[in-house]
């Protein structure tokens, strides 16, 4: 079942067209990887799924993006509810300069949760979901900026799952991490997909091959090909995809 249905999405920064007629579906509880060279529009596409692109001046969008059957570009869309439902993990771990506790419950407080018991309960469950609870349960008042890079990225994921989203958008979540940390985060993603639908943008083709169920290849603002990850990497239908994954281009 498709949780996100994108139909003929065109995206413009001023006069520059960054996305050209993108149509695709994302299935529930699957990891979809979007690969492609820098500047191909994959990050723009990712950000258009929770309208983070609205923060940029002078952008224009045509086409439809249905999430749970609702067109998120319909005028009057509740952006706060949309972003609560469709959360985001960024390239660099970016905890707020607050304590571990305040970081994880930030989204909950923003959405009006005040009850200390509820906050503590959700904090514990969120940190457990990213396997940080045992490490950090005695350090909840520590400055989050003092954690290691991997811990910070896990914390950011915990901060996100605390608001109970349905979809996680990940924009090269491992690009600032070392190999061991990357492997750990990838394991975490495999666990998270049981509960969430994940879309990950990555430069790293091995990563796409390792973690994803479905892979889409973007080039110059177009979706060249999308299919089962195994099929894309073993038997691509489009010559341009083949050039990219075999390393002849990109």
């Amino acid at each position, binding site marked *: 079942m498709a949780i996100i249905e994108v139909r003929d999405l065109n995206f413009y920064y001023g006069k520059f067209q960054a996305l050209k007629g993108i149509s695709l579906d994302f299935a529930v509880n699957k990891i979809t990887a979007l690969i492609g060279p820098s500047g191909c529009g994959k990050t723009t596409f990712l950000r258009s799924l*929770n309208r*983070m692109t609205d*923060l940029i*001046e002078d952008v224009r969008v045509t086409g439809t993006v249905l999430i749970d059957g609702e067109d998120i570009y319909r005028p009057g869309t509740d*952006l*706060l*509810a*949309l*972003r*609560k439902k469709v*959360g*985001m993990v*960024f390239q*660099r771990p*970016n905890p*707020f*300069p607050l304590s571990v506790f305040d970081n994880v419950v*930030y*989204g909950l*407080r*923003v*959405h009006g949760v005040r009850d200390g018991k509820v906050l503590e309960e959700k904090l514990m469950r969120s940190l457990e979901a990213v396997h940080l609870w045992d490490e950090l349960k005695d350090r909840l008042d520590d400055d989050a900026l003092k954690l290691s890079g991997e811990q910070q990225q896990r914390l*950011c994921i915990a*901060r*996100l799952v605390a*608001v109970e989203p349905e979809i996680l958008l990940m924009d090269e979540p491992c690009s600032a991490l070392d190999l061991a940390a990357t492997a750990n985060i990838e394991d975490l993603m495999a666990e998270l997909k049981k509960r969430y639908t994940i879309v990950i943008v990555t430069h790293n083709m091995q990563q796409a091959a390792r973690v994803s169920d479905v892979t889409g290849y973007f080039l110059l603002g177009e979706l060249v090909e999308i299919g089962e990850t195994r099929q894309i990497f073993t038997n691509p239908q489009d010559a341009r995809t083949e050039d990219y994954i075999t390393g002849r281009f990109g």
Partner: protein
Amino acid sequence: MKRLGPRVEQKVAQAGLWTMTLVTVGVLLFIIFFILRRGLPVLSLEFLTANPADMGKSGGIFSTIVGTVALSFLAILIAAPLGVGTAIYLTEYTWGGPLTRVIRFGAECLAGIPSIIFGLFGFILFVTKLKFGWSILSGGLTMAFMLLPTIIRTSEEAIKSVPPAYRTVSFSLGSTKWQTVTRVVLPSALPGIVTGIVLSVGRSIGETAATIFTAGSALRMPTSIFSSTRPMSVHFYILAREGISMSNAYGTAAVLIIAILGINILTYYLMNRFIRKYS
């Protein structure tokens, strides 16, 4: 003339720059030394806690200290929220379009206006038109307008230095702009904003021209914001100009200088802490 070799040139430049720095620091130290040498002998607990008597010829300066504090306090109370609010609007709520540029340009112009013009403006608007008379209220309002540009500028810089990622993340978690501003941006920018405000306190303490027209020069202890008052700076000016008491004038000046130095050192300390936090 034969050109100097690069090594010699370097030596000459270094010596030249060193001399310029020495002159700058020397002038500063001379002023401080000059004032303190004449002013410090006059200072005593009594000078600080007694009210002026005999037009300031004898007695202390207590009522003028109270006047200075009252004026600065009122000015900051008005200017800080206005200035910080404007800075938030300019940095967070506009895309930097023509309106933003007009507001920013206006604030810059405000900063370049001589303080005596502010005094005259305050006199016409607050003292006569609005009938606040010569009062702490008129003086405080006038001074507030003088301080606005500094507060706007320093707050803007502080807010801009907050990493953009904090905002992006906050929005991505479904916060409103206001939540983002109050929960993430302002707490991070606060030390910088406070620095600007403290700097403004320093400026307001020394301000003379703007207050002489608006707060008057009454030596009595002020009893409300509608009382006329004479801040230390004006007291010094009158004592010296009318030749009432040079020693008391220097005593007042010494108190002023020490207060301003203290505030600048505090500013420096705050600024250092702010910089360390974000580097």
